[in-house]
């Protein structure tokens, strides 16, 4: 999400380095750092505490994402709710998917839907009181910042006006860094629907920006 953000651990559980390694009861074995998400989830079937490793891996990433959409106050509980729901549904996780991010984003998205009014208000509030707007910083940057901020406020307004389904797709791509296929999997919709929703959302966002910043590049 953020270039400096909590990247996911891209490790693959592959051939063991030492084939003769002792067999340890998986009930007591510490979760190996190298296990992929599916492996952790599978272990959590018998050893529920293993699931906490998934929290350690992705709670920061989800918090950042949710804080963007709902603000920091709601984000904390929502991340907790997401992991609790994921934990409760861990037996339904398809273990053939080594990466659990789409699954977790999908659960978070569903829970966020309950807060859709709050989300729209969160964006609209930006137009009135910028969170870290152009008020701080050296004077020359403030001037440049004002224009940028104005376009952001327009953008936030456009986001607030988007239908929820379109916004979910747009933000999972732009802020969640999911691929189209991953968004499809997260939301349980066909990839074609992801594309059409994304196109529609992009058009509206472009239109909103076009009013403020005509030099904005076409995608």
């Amino acid at each position, binding site marked *: 999400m953020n270039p400096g953000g909590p990247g996911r651990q891209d490790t693959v559980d592959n051939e063991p380095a030492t084939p003769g390694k002792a*067999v340890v*009861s998986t009930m007591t074995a510490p979760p190996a750092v190298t296990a992929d998400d599916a492996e952790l989830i*599978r272990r959590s079937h018998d050893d529920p505490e293993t699931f906490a490793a998934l929290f*350690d891996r992705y709670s920061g990433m989800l*918090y*950042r994402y949710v804080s963007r959409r709902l603000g920091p106050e709601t984000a904390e509980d929502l991340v907790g709710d997401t992991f609790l729901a994921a*934990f409760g549904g861990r037996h339904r996780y398809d273990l053939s998917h080594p990466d659990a991010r789409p699954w977790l984003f999908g659960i978070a998205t569903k829970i966020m839907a309950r807060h859709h009014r709050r989300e729209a208000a969160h964006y609209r509030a930006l137009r009135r009181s910028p969170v870290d707007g152009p008020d701080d910083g050296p004077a020359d940057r403030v001037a440049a910042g004002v224009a940028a901020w104005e376009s952001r406020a327009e953008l936030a307004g456009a986001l607030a006006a988007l239908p929820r389904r379109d916004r979910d797709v747009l933000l999972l791509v732009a802020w969640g860094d999911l691929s189209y296929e991953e968004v499809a999997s997260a939301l349980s919709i066909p990839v074609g629907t992801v594309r059409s929703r994304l196109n529609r959302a992009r058009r509206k966002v472009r239109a909103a920006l076009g009013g403020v910043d005509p030099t904005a590049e076409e995608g």
Partner: protein
Amino acid sequence: MDDLSPLRDLGRALEHDPPPSLARQRSRLTDAAHAPRRRRLRPRGWTALALAACAVAALLIVPSVLLRSGGHHGRALSPLGRVDDRPLNVLVLGSDARGADAVHRDSARSDTMALVRLPAGRARVTVVSLPRDLVVQLPACVRPDGRKTRPGPGLINSAYSMGGVSCAIKTVEAVTSVRVDQAVVVNFKGFAHMVDVLGGVTVTLPKSVNDPASGLHLSAGKHKLDGKGALAYARVRHGMGDGSDLDRIKRQQRLMADLYGEALHMLTSNPIRFAQFLKAGADSVKTVPGLDLAGMKALAESFKRTDPSKAHYTTLPYRFSPKDPNRLVVNEPAAARVLAPFKQP
């Protein structure tokens, strides 16, 4: 730079770093993990049948072709002696370890277990799946590091992860009173590979399926599935049939019969492909005690009389544990009936 860049900038401006108090949410999760298990019962027989099919095919039908294609080294006597027509009880373990060496893997788990009865004459094969949530008395097993495990109640599938194949055999023998002549460990990835080498398997769907959970998206009608697709097909529960586990087991049984049929067909129609299938099978299947080529060949020859459509598939009868309704225990009288064929001389 694309039209999403301003949006990404906005996102960064809105973003907050996770506060230390987020740890409270972690506690909520670990509390839930500690809470008494309210685990939904899901006897996971999903690949048992498909795996059993491939294992049996690889172990029994296939090696004759390998031998025909020039392997003349297997002159040693089979440890089983003459296995050609003798009745055999085979324990099939579906392991989800991804390495080729599925046995000495700390994370290896026998996700599926099935007993396969190959009667004398081989005309009719019986497959009994053992639910993995079955609570049984685990015997003391010697772990690969030489230490002994403590006997006591435990999940049947933990025997394999604790003490390997020998422990799984010991446990199943104790629980079922069936003598296991041969154990076969098939790994997960191997199954998909074997289906691929087989050229896929054809399934017929009464209606379309759209299940993101398993990644299966198919229209109604006939489809040729590759290995990955066949795995998904064996696992899918949503949007197919009545969504129950029983329905899935039925589907797996059909899949098994189809695989079996395709393997038999290939044996005669395309021996080269069949040799590849064998190789794929040999790579993903481990036998205990190890069968040499002569032993495999004898078994394979004996299998020519088997009619795959006459195979009988069932699950070991169980009931819910009186102590924990999320656990299963063996339903002894009914189990004895199901296991009777395994005990015939």
